[in-house]
């Protein structure tokens, strides 16, 4: 993700979460979080449980989200320079009153810097890989896991009693992990028509071309389901297994080779050690040997796992 993509992502996240953008530029947002976003992002469980228990009006936090640090800082510096150029020099900051306040504050709090003694809006760097952006990613996932949606009809119906047939689909986005001591991933998206049982790949892309709504649109009817959800699930499983079986598994063969090498190595070390050990020490060494074997399997054993990113039921126009 480059800066522009991050910026767009943040914008859409803030919109989806109903946050109030106070100020923005192509390089930053100043935003007052919505309660939902505050709960997801600020890590204040005690505060929120207080609000929930007492029913107090929540005071959400504001944040400065910087999506392009270089541009943002250049703009800030330019603004500051302009401000200084425009403004006549400030009245003497060393006025007796001001310095007396500083001195008083300094006595209680240690040194106080006159100019920065204002409320701070925490600044967050939103580059790819930053913790805050990762948090946005996680929050999207947490609040975007299970959906139940309808395609919005494309045109107004002329006849009031005309009804468009819709088909229900089970859609799921899957992440497949190929792992040993190393790892890579593939993403899949499947949709299975609950009417006909046909299975479509890249289903998510197809959805992105449509307008979706959580509300049941008028003048539609949903085709009777021809197969159960369970059947749809096994269709998906069979399809992905078939696809994965045709992959190249030389990486796994290599990992298995490394695994066997490692097991050989520790066997050559531990077996003579156990054989020559005193009887009373044997259990301890054997236990250690078992532990080392388990570690090596954990580290190298090749495995493929599929898990869902998110899923839902999608009602799409047409009979498929």
């Amino acid at each position, binding site marked *: 993700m480059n800066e522009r993509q991050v910026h767009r992502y943040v914008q859409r996240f803030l919109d989806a979460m109903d946050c109030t953008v106070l100020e923005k530029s192509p390089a930053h947002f100043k935003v007052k979080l919505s309660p939902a976003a505050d709960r997801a992002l600020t890590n204040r469980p005690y505060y929120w449980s207080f609000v929930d228990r007492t029913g107090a009006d929540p005071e959400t936090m504001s944040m400065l989200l910087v999506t392009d640090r270089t541009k943002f800082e250049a703009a800030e510096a330019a603004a500051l320079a302009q401000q200084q150029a425009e403004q006549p020099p400030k009245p003497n900051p060393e006025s007796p009153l001001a310095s007396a306040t500083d001195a008083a504050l300094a006595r209680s709090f240690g040194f106080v810097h006159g100019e920065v003694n204002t409320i701070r809006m925490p600044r967050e760097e939103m580059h790819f890989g930053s913790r805050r952006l990762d948090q946005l990613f996680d929050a999207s996932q947490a609040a975007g896991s299970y959906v139940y949606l309808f395609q919005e009809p494309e045109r107004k119906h002329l006849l009031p009693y005309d009804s468009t047939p819709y088909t229900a689909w089970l859609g799921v986005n899957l992440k497949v992990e190929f792992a040993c001591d*190393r*790892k890579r991933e593939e993403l899949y998206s499947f949709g299975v028509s609950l009417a006909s049982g046909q299975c479509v790949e890249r289903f998510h892309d197809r959805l992105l071309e449509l307008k979706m709504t959580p509300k049941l649109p008028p003048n539609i009817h949903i085709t009777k389901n021809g197969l159960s959800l369970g059947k749809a699930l096994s269709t998906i499983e069979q399809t992905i297994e078939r696809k994965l079986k045709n992959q190249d598994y030389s990486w796994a063969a290599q990992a298995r080779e490394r695994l066997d090498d490692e097991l050989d190595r520790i066997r050559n070390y531990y077996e003579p050690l156990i054989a020559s050990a005193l009887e009373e020490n044997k259990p301890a060494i054997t236990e250690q040997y078992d532990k080392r074997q388990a570690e090596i399997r954990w580290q190298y054993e090749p495995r493929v796992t599929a898990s869902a990113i998110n899923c839902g039921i999608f009602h799409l126009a047409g009979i498929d």
Partner: protein
Amino acid sequence: MLQPNQPTNLTRSEPAARSKLHPLVDWQFDRSWFDELQARLNRNGPWDDWQLYQLAVEAHQAKQVTSFDELRCLRCLPSLEPMPHQISTASKVLHEMGGRAILADEVGLGKTIEAGLVLKEYMVRGLVKRALILVPASLVLQWVRELNQKFGISAVAQKKEHTWQYDVVVASMDTAKREPHREKLLSQDYDMLIIDEAHKLKNKKTTNYQFVNQMSKKYCLLLTATPVQNDLDELYNLITLLKPGQLGGQSEFAANFVVDKRLPKNEDQLQEALSAVMIRNRRGDGGIHFTKRIVRNIPLSLSPEEKALYDGVTAFVKERVVETIADMASMLSLVTLQREVCSSRDAVFVTLVNLFKKTAEDSPLRAKIWGLVENIRAITSNTKAEKAMELIREIDDKVIIFTEYRATQEYLLNYFRANGLHAVPYRGGMNRGKKDWMMDLFRGRAQVLIATEAGGEGINLQFCHNMINFDLPWNPMRVEQRIGRVHRLGQQHDVRIYNLCTLGTIEEHIVSLLHEKINLFELVIGELDHILERFEKQELSIEQQIARLVAEAGDGTDLQRRISGLGDSISRIRSEVQSEPELEEEDAIGNLLDAVGQSISMEASP
């Protein structure tokens, strides 16, 4: 929702399909999402937002680990610029060593960065979630900071029992191996274990060694600049801890590779076995070229009032030394008075007042002390502060000022503020948050940072390349630490160091000792450790030796003679130390280790 590795979370019937995709590969299809979907259908919701659903998919697309080999963490760390040898080390550990390695770079080449890269890469790939980092107690906070700031890894320092629950914990080895912690750690599986200063594991019989041996870990990094100190067995133990059997059994190792404790045989074979588990980068023949240090001593004459105070204090100290008869502690504190006068009247004032309070009411000393305090009243300006101000204006860039005394720091803050100069303080007693805030202010709008503390958890100030030593510590290590804040890897500019030095005082002698005799300011990084280690082996710490000289010296010339004697003995040690690397070239173990890594030469491009 993504919990492929935690089958315990899936409680319903047939939570996941397990079979084989390939004779060698286990296949697991997680079905927990499907159960949840059905449950929501039955309950008629709640349903999530379509926009967020799309954003979640996009997040996974962005984070997708597309290949086995690339170093993905680099694109997550835009502000980190690792050096080429650090990147190549990290990828070797990841791609050729299966994540178990000894990182044995020479001091100062960035083992921490290498370990951080490896850890981050595994985390980005989702191969490591729980990691434990065991380090000496003094380095805990530094590690936490580096991991958080440089690598964006939420590491926490172990403080309380419950801290162990966090995913990435940094703890001291001494804490971890003690009950009740020990038992807790041994009952867990760590995706990654990192041990800094791992040469402390060289002895099989120690609790350190046994503890680490018993821990259950997937990936493991051992960091040490000195994998062998005395004996080849140390190397054997270290490697066996990481990969048992890599060098065979103990007796095999002895038979195949050892002639004598420090003399290996079958070097080629041994080296091959080593290079599979160990990486050692060395400074190239010319050493890493840091940017230059440009040192300027700024001699100052005290004003007549300041001089009067200095002389008064000196006389007082002399008198007292004769009376107390060489008790080291009180001698040090007396000499401190003299040093404080050289810094600021505020510094010496605080000490005098305390001394006054401590003195019995009927003691004749009270009057003398009070006389000195009266001397202070006569002083209206601070020659050094004025000079410092002038320098800062001249430099017209970020400057860090170091002083030994809190009172001087306060004075300077006020003095600079009164003159319209932005300065922020930094001292050891501040809590972490405040320290960070001060750093941010200094990085941002303040031109000057006034620090009383140089050591401790890294203040790294590569963005600043001017420093003023308002006064100098007597311990050369502390001077070096000060310089090390700005003069380190990553500094782009030559570093300018200004030493303010009042003539006709002990300060003059100290500056000449540190600068001319020890040549402190131009030593290669790391060299000073060796010199001092040897020097202080003899008896007292260098600080104490100087204090004794000062207290016992008759007059100015006598003192000068004695200090220069001290300087000569240090110079001798220095030339010894500097001639030694050539001796080590002959060392068989040294050769062996050197062959394991690459030598890095980095000419800094100005």
